[in-house]
C-alpha cells in the first residue's frame, strides 16, 4: 500500500534534516516529495509508503525494517539507462532531486503480483526442493532449468556501458578508525590530539552513527552539538583525514584495509571528469574498529509483515528524520534498548504497549515513566503472531504464568528488539574467531589481534558512556603502540545508565506459522528444522541448504538468529554450533570502483615503438604481441591482406625491405664471468665468440623444454648484447637474474634491459647493402670485411648506431640498433635510400612467412612448452661438452624417446591449398572417433616466393618420416593429404644471407 498516510509527516525540527529544501522523487512510477537529508527510505516512510517490495521466493509484501546496511527488504533499482544501479538499499541512498527508483521485486505492482500465486505452491517448495525433483524425464531438465533461471535475480544490469569514472588511492596512516559513531569519534579525537596520522571512515554521509538516532546528551551537549564540535576539531587537525560516505569493506594481511567512498549517489548523472566512487587502499599501523552493532529481530508468526521495524530504526526515523511513524505502536523487546524506541514513540505522540519477556523486577525502572505516559508494559510476555494482510494490524501476545493468557493488541507499527550483534566482520576477516557472550547475548571479539582493537558497540559495550571511554582508551593504546606520547584528553564523562541484562531467546516452540529469519531469501524457522531433520548438521551445511544469509545483506540481520535456532534444534550451545564464515565485502562494492582506472585503454599498458606514428601514417594494420602493438602488414590501396603480404614477401626476397624489430628483447650483459654465464644458460658454447661476432642461441627451462631464442653479440671484451623474443624479454631477464643471484652469486656479471633504449631497424634483401651503404658511409659493408654474423659500430644518417649482419629472413641483411630518441631520422634515411630499389616496409605476417620459408622457428608458435631442441632437429646447437640449464632433463626416459613429436615441413598435394594453422594430423584419415592424432600444424602460409603453400608441423617421429604421406583431419570432417618434407623450403644451403 503506498497511499500517503496523514499521520506520517516530517515535523518541523530535524536533527539532520533540512526541511526547508524539498526534493522531488519517484518511486515505482509515483511522484513524491522529500527533503534534503532524507534517505530514500526515510522519504518513503515520511510519505506513508509502507510496502516497498516483495520477497524473492514467496513474493510476500515487505516493508522497510531498518535504517542501514542490514536492510533486507527495501531493495530498489535506482535511475535508468546507462546510469542505473541495481539492488540499492533505500536506507543507504541519500535523496536527490529527480531520484527515480523502482522495487526490484514488485511483480505487476506491489498490490498485485501474478507470481504471488507461488505462495500457494510454497508448501511444495521447501529449501532444497530443486535437489529432489526435476530429474524425470531427463529430457525436460533443460526446460525446468530455464524456468528456474528466469526467476533469478533482483535488479537489472544497465543496458549500455558505464559512462562514469572511478579511481583508487593508496593511503597510509598511524591509526585507522573505522566508524564515525561516538566510540570512533572519541578514539579519533584522542589520537588526533596527539598529532598522529589518523584516517577515520564512516559509511554514512553524516558523522555520529547510532548517536544520530538518539536524543541523549553527551558531555553536557546535545548529541548533535557534540558531534559537530568533535568534527570541527578533527577538521582542524592537519594529520587527520575524515572520510564520510566511505564504507570500509575489506581487511587483509598486515593491516591493509579497503574502503569505498561514494562521491556521488548511485543513479545520479555526475559532472564530467568527476569520479563517482573511489576505493581507498589504506595501510595502517594500528586499527580501531568502532563499527557499531546491528539489531536482531525476533521470531513469531508473520514476523515479516510490513509495519514491523527494528526498534533502533524506529528511534532513528523519529529522532533523526522527525517522522511520525505511528499512532498505536507495540514494542517487543527482550532488552532495555527497546524502551528507547518506546520513549521516542511516546514523544512523537503514539500510544505504546511494551511486550517484554523479562520479569517486572527487571523493568521496574521504567514503571514511573510508563505510568506517566500511560504506556502498558506486559512482562513475562511474548508476541506469538502478527496479524494483518497488507501491513501489521494487530499482534497476539501471550503471557506466561497463570493460565497462559493471550491478548490481541491493535497497532499500526511493531518495533522489535531482540538484542544487538556487534559488527565483527572486520575482526573476522582478519582471522578473529568471535566468542559468544551469554551475559550480553551476543558474539563479541575474543582473542586480540595484534594492532587491532574493537570498541563500543562493536565490542559489545552498548552504553554511550562505555563507547566514549573505550574510544579514549583505544586511542591512547594505539598512540602508545605507534610511539606517540598520549595526553589524556579532557574528561569526557557521561552518566552511565545501568541497564538490565538482556533475556536472549530465539524461538518459541509454541509459535507456529511462518517465521522468517532471512527476509530477503525467505528462509524460515521451518526451513532450518527441515535441514536439521535431513541431517545437515554443520551450520555451513544448514546455511547453504536453506540459503540463510545469501542475500545482498549477507545475513546481517538474520544470520545469528538462524544459528541460534539451529543450535536449539541440534541441542547444542551456540558456541558449539559456531558462526558461518564472514566474507568481504562488508557491503557490496561497485565493480567499476574496484577496477578503478584500469579499464579501456588503461586496462593494460600499450607499448609502441619509436616508429609507431610512421607505421600509422603508412597504413599499417597492427597485431598485439604481448603488450606491444606491432605492424602486421602494410596494405596499399585496394590490397587484400594476402596481396599485401605477397608483395612484401617478393620485395624482401628480390629487392629490399625493412621491418621495425624494436620489440625484440635486448639485454646488455657485462662482466668478467659473462661467458661462463652464457655457457650455462644457453645450450651452445660461447667461449670462442670473438668481439664483433654474433651467434644464435637457444635456452631451455630446467625441464629441457625450449624457452626462448635469439642472437647474442660480443660487443667487446666481457660485454655482450643478448636479444630475446618479443614476448619473452621480461621472462628471460628475470630468469637470468634469478640464476645469477640465487644459484651463482659468485659470478661477476651484470644484466641491464635495454629493449626500450634501442630502436631496431632490420633491412634485408638483395639490395640491402646498396641501400644501406648510402646512409652508412664510414663502415665497409663488404662481405669480406663485414661478414654474416658480425657486428660493427657506425654512424648512420648522422646518428651513432650498432650494426649487426644478421637476418631472420635468410637474405642479406643489416640490423641497426639506434638510440630510440633519434631513430625516426635513421628510419627515414634508409627508407629514402631504398626508394630506387623499390623498398617496402613489412610487418609481422611477412616476417613469419619469410622465416617459415627458411624453417626458422618462432618460440611459442612452433613450440609450446613441450618441445626440446632435439625435437626441433636442432641437435647441432646442443653442446655435448658442457652442462647447461635443462641438459639433464633431455636424458630422461620420455624426453629421449625417438618417436617424440618433431618439427617437420608439410607440403600439400595441391600446392594452392594452404593448411589451417592448428590443424591436427593423422596417419589414418578414416579411423573412427576418437582418432589417433600424430601431430599438428604449427605454422602455415602461402609462399609467393616458392609459388606454393608451405607448413611447419610437429609430427610424432617426424624426423624419420620425411616423404611419407599423412593427413590433416579438420573438425568439419575434411581430410587433406600432405607429404612430410624438410622444414627448410627455401635456399636450403643458406647462401643468400652470406652474400
Amino acid at each position, binding site marked *: 500500500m503506498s497511499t500517503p498516510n496523514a499521520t506520517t509527516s516530517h515535523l518541523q525540527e530535524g536533527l539532520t534534516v533540512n526541511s526547508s529544501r524539498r526534493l522531488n522523487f519517484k518511486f515505482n512510477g509515483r511522484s513524491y516529495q522529500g527533503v534534503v537529508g532524507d534517505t530514500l527510505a526515510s522519504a518513503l516512510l515520511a510519505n506513508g509508503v509502507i510496502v516497498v517490495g516483495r520477497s524473492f521466493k514467496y513474493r510476500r509484501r515487505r516493508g522497510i525494517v531498518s535504517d542501514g546496511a542490514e536492510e533486507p527488504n527495501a531493495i530498489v533499482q535506482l535511475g535508468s539507462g546507462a546510469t542505473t544501479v541495481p539492488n540499492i538499499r533505500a536506507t543507504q541512498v541519500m535523496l536527490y532531486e529527480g531520484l527515480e527508483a523502482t522495487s526490484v521485486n514488485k511483480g505487476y505492482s506491489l498490490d498485485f503480483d501474478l507470481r504471488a500465486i507461488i505462495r500457494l505452491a510454497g508448501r511444495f517448495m521447501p529449501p532444497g526442493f530443486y*535437489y529432489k525433483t526435476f530429474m524425470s524425464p*531427463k529430457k525436460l531438465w533443460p526446460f525446468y532449468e530455464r524456468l528456474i533461471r528466469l526467476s533469478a535475480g533482483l535488479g537489472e544490469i544497465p543496458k549500455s556501458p*558505464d559512462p562514469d569514472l572511478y579511481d583508487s588511492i593508496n593511503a597510509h596512516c598511524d591509526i585507522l578508525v573505522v566508524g564515525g559513531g561516538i566510540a570512533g569519534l572519541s578514539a579519533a579525537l584522542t589520537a588526533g590530539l596527539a598529532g598522529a596520522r589518523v584516517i577515520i571512515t564512516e559509511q554514512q554521509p553524516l558523522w555520529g552513527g547510532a548517536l544520530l538516532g538518539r536524543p541523549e546528551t553527551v558531555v553536557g551537549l546535545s548529541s548533535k552539538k557534540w558531534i559537530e564540535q568533535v568534527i570541527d576539531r578533527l577538521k582542524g587537525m592537519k594529520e587527520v583525514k575524515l572520510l564520510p560516505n566511505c564504507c570500509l569493506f575489506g581487511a587483509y594481511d598486515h593491516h591493509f584495509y579497503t574502503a569505498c567512498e561514494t562521491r556521488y549517489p548511485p543513479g545520479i548523472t555526475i559532472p564530467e571528469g568527476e569520479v563517482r566512487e573511489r576505493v581507498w587502499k589504506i595501510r595502517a599501523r594500528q586499527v580501531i574498529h568502532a563499527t557499531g552493532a546491528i539489531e536482531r529481530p525476533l521470531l513469531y508468526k508473520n514476523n515479516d509483515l510490513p509495519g514491523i521495524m527494528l526498534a533502533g530504526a524506529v528511534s532513528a526515523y523519529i529522532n533523526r528524520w522527525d517522522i511520525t511513524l505511528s499512532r498505536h505502536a507495540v514494542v517487543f523487546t527482550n532488552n532495555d534498548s527497546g524502551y528507547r524506541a518506546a520513549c521516542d514513540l511516546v514523544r512523537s505522540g503514539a500510544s505504546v504497549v511494551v511486550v517484554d519477556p523479562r520479569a517486572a523486577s527487571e523493568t521496574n525502572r521504567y514503571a514511573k515513566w510508563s505510568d506517566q505516559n500511560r504506556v502498558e508494559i506486559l512482562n513475562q510476555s511474548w508476541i506469538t503472531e502478527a496479524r494483518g494482510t497488507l501491513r501489521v494490524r494487530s499482534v497476539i501476545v501471550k503471557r506466561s504464568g497463570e493460565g497462559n493468557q493471550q491478548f490481541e493488541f491493535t497497532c499500526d507499527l511493531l518495533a522489535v528488539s531482540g538484542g544487538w550483534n556487534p559488527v565483527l566482520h572486520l575482526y573476522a576477516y582478519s582471522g578473529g574467531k568471535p566468542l559468544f557472550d551469554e551475559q550480553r547475548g551476543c558474539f563479541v571479539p575474543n582473542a586480540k589481534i595484534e594492532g587491532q582493537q574493537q570498541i563500543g558497540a562493536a565490542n559489545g559495550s552498548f552504553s554511550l558512556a562505555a563507547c566514549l571511554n573505550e574510544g579514549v582508551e583505544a586511542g591512547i593504546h594505539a598512540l602508545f603502540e605507534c610511539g606517540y606520547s598520549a595526553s589524556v584528553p579532557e574528561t569526557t564523562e557521561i552518566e552511565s545508565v545501568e541497564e538490565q541484562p538482556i533475556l536472549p531467546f530465539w524461538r518459541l516452540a509454541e509459535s507456529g506459522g511462518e517465521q522468517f529469519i532471512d527476509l530477503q531469501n525467505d528462509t524460515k524457522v521451518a526451513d532450518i528444522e527441515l535441514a536439521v531433520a535431513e541431517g545437515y548438521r554443520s551450520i555451513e551445511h544448514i546455511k547453504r541448504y536453506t540459503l540463510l544469509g545469501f542475500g545482498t545483506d549477507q545475513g546481517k540481520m538474520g544470520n545469528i538468529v538462524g544459528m541460534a535456532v539451529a543450535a536449539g534444534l541440534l541441542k547444542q550451545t551456540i558456541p558449539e554450533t559456531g558462526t558461518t564464515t564472514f566474507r568481504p565485502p562488508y557491503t557490496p562494492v561497485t565493480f567499476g570502483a574496484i577496477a578503478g582506472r584500469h579499464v*579501456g585503454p588503461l586496462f593494460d599498458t600499450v607499448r609502441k615503438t619509436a616508429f609507431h606514428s610512421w607505421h600509422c601514417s603508412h597504413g599499417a594494420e597492427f597485431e598485439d604481441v604481448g603488450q606491444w602493438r606491432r605492424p602486421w602488414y602494410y596494405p596499399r590501396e585496394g590490397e587484400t591482406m594476402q596481396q599485401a603480404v605477397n608483395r612484401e614477401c617478393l620485395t624482401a626476397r628480390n629487392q629490399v625491405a625493412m621491418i621495425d624489430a624494436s620489440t625484440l628483447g635486448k639485454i646488455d650483459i657485462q662482466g668478467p664471468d659473462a661467458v661462463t654465464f652464457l655457457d650455462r644458460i644457453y645450450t651452445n658454447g660461447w667461449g670462442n665468440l670473438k668481439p664483433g661476432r654474433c651467434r644464435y642461441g637457444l635456452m631451455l627451462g630446467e625441464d629441457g623444454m625450449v624457452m626462448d631464442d635469439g642472437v647474442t653479440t660480443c660487443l667487446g671484451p666481457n660485454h655482450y648484447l643478448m636479444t630475446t623474443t618479443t614476448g619473452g624479454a621480461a621472462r628471460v631477464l628475470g630468469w637470468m637474474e634469478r640464476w645469477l643471484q640465487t644459484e651463482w652469486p659468485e659470478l661477476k656479471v651484470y644484466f641491464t634491459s635495454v629493449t626500450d633504449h634501442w630502436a631496431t631497424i632490420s633491412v634485408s634483401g638483395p639490395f640491402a647493402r646498396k641501400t644501406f651503404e648510402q646512409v652508412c658511409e664510414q663502415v665497409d659493408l663488404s662481405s669480406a670485411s663485414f661478414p654474416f654474423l658480425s657486428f660493427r659500430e657506425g654512424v648512420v644518417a648522422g646518428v651513432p648506431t650498432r650494426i649487426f649482419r644478421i637476418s631472420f629472413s635468410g637474405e642479406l641483411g643489416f640490423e641497426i640498433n639506434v638510440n630510440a630518441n633519434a631513430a625516426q631520422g635513421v628510419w627515414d634515411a634508409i627508407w629514402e635510400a631504398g626508394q630506387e630499389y623499390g623498398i617496402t616496409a613489412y610487418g609481422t605476417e611477412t616476417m613469419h612467412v619469410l622465416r617459415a620459408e627458411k624453417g626458422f622457428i618462432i618460440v611459442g608458435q612452433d613450440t609450446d612448452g613441450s618441445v626440446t631442441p632435439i625435437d626441433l632437429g636442432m641437435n647441432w646447437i646442443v653442446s655435448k661438452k658442457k652442462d647447461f640449464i635443462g641438459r639433464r632433463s633431455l636424458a*630422461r626416459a620420455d624426453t629421449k624417446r625417438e618417436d617424440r613429436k618433431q618439427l617437420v615441413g608439410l607440403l600439400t598435394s595441391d600446392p594452392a591449398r594452404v593448411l589451417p594453422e*592448428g*590443424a591436427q594430423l593423422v596417419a589414418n584419415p578414416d579411423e573412427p572417433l576418437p582418432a589417433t592424432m600424430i601431430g*599438428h600444424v604449427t605454422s602455415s602460409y602461402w609462399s609467393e616466393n616458392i609459388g606454393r603453400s608451405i607448413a611447419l608441423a610437429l609430427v610424432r617421429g617426424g624426423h624419420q618420416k620425411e616423404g611419407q604421406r599423412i593427413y590433416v583431419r579438420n573438425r568439419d570432417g575434411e581430410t587433406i593429404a600432405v607429404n612430410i618434407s624438410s622444414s627448410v623450403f627455401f635456399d636450403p644451403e643458406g647462401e643468400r644471407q652470406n652474400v
Partner: protein
Amino acid sequence: MQRFSALRLLGHGLTGHKHWRQSWRHPEPKREYDVVIVGGGGHGLATAYYLAREHGMTNIAVVEKGWIGGGNTGRNTTIVRSNYLWDEAAHLYEKSLKLWEGLSHELNFNVMFSQRGVMNLAHSLQDVRDAERRANANVLNGIDSEILTPEQIRQKVPLISISPTARYPVLGATFQPRGGVARHDAITWGYARAADALGVDIIQNCEVTGVLKESGHVVGVETTRGVIRARKVGVVAAGHSSVIAQMAGLRLPIESHPLQAFVSEPCKPALDTVVMSNAVHAYISQSDKGEFVVGAGIDGYNGYSQSGGYNVIEGAVAAIVELFPTLSRIRLMRQWGGIVDVAPDACPIIGLTPLKGLYINCGWGTGGFKSTPGSGWVLAHTIAHNRPHELNLPFTLERFSSGALIDEHGAAGVAH
C-alpha cells in the same frame, strides 16, 4: 535410501515436510575399514561412492576434518567442461563430463548440471591458432567443440564487448556446448547420500593427524577421533595433500596456492553462457540465483590461508569490466578463497605412491570441480585393483621422473 521425486515432494508437502529422512548417517568411526578416504570433498566422496558401487567395497570411511564439501568443492566457480588439448587430459575430463550428464539420475539428487556452454575467448593471433588447435583436437577426440567468430560470440553473449578497438579485442573463441555449470553443494550432498546408502561411513570433524605405517605399508590413519586402521588409504585432500603426504614421509610435486573467487549481487538473467578468457584472466557465469560468479587467478605464493591479496581481485574485476562494460555498475557481494594444489604441468596426479597401501589424488589445481565424478571413478578403480585405470595411467607420479608431463599449462593456457 529414500528416493527423491516430484511425487514424493508433493506428498511431503501435504504433510508439512515432517517426514524426510536424514541424507546420511553421522556414525562414530569404526576401528578398522577396508579403505579410508582422507578428505570429504566431492572427489573423496565420489571415490567412496564408486568403490562401493562399481567395485563392491562397502567397508569404507571418508574422514573429513571439517564439514563435507567445505573445501574447494564448496568454494569454486563450478565450471564443467572437457575441451582439454592433450589426448590424455581430454579423455579423462570427457569421462567425467559423461558421468556428469547422468549424475542427477544416478545419484537421485539433482546436481543442477546446466549445459549452457563454455566459451574460451581468443584475444591475439596466437590465441586464435591455439583455439583452432584445441578445437580440432577436441573433435577428433570425440568431444564437442566449435570455433566462434566475434559476431557469433556477440549473438550468444550480447554483453561481451567485441569492439575491435578494445585493448585486447575479442578475435574469436572456442565453444563447448556440452560444458556448463553445476551446483557445488549438490555434488557433495548427492555423493554423500548415495555413498552412505551403500554403507560408506562419512565421518566429519575428524582430522587426520598421522599416517600409520607398518614395515613400509600404510595401515591406517591417526585422527582427532582416534586411530582408524585400513588396508588401503586414499588421500584426496586437495590443497592439504602435501600435509598428509608429509605425515607419510613423502614429498609431492605440488604447491598449494590461494585461489580467489567472488560473486556479484543477484541480477536478472543476462549471461547465458560460461565465458573464460585467459589473456585478460577471468572467467564468469551467472548463477541460478542471478549472481555473476567470477574466478580470479591464483595468488603467486604458497598459501594455506583461504584468503588472498586484494590486488588479485582488482585484476579480475578489471578484466570483467573490460570484457563486459555494462557490468561496471553492478556490485561485488561476496568474495572468498580456496587452497588449490598446483602441479607443474597443471594436470592431476592420480595413482599409487611409493608407499604400499597409500594412494594419492591431487594436483587438480584450479580445475578440480569439473572432474569430480571422473576423478572419483578412476581413483576407485586404482584403489580397488591396485593399479591405475588406463584413463589415469598417464597421470601417475611416474611422469615426473620420465618427463612425460602433460603440459596443459603451457599449451592450453586456461586450466580452470
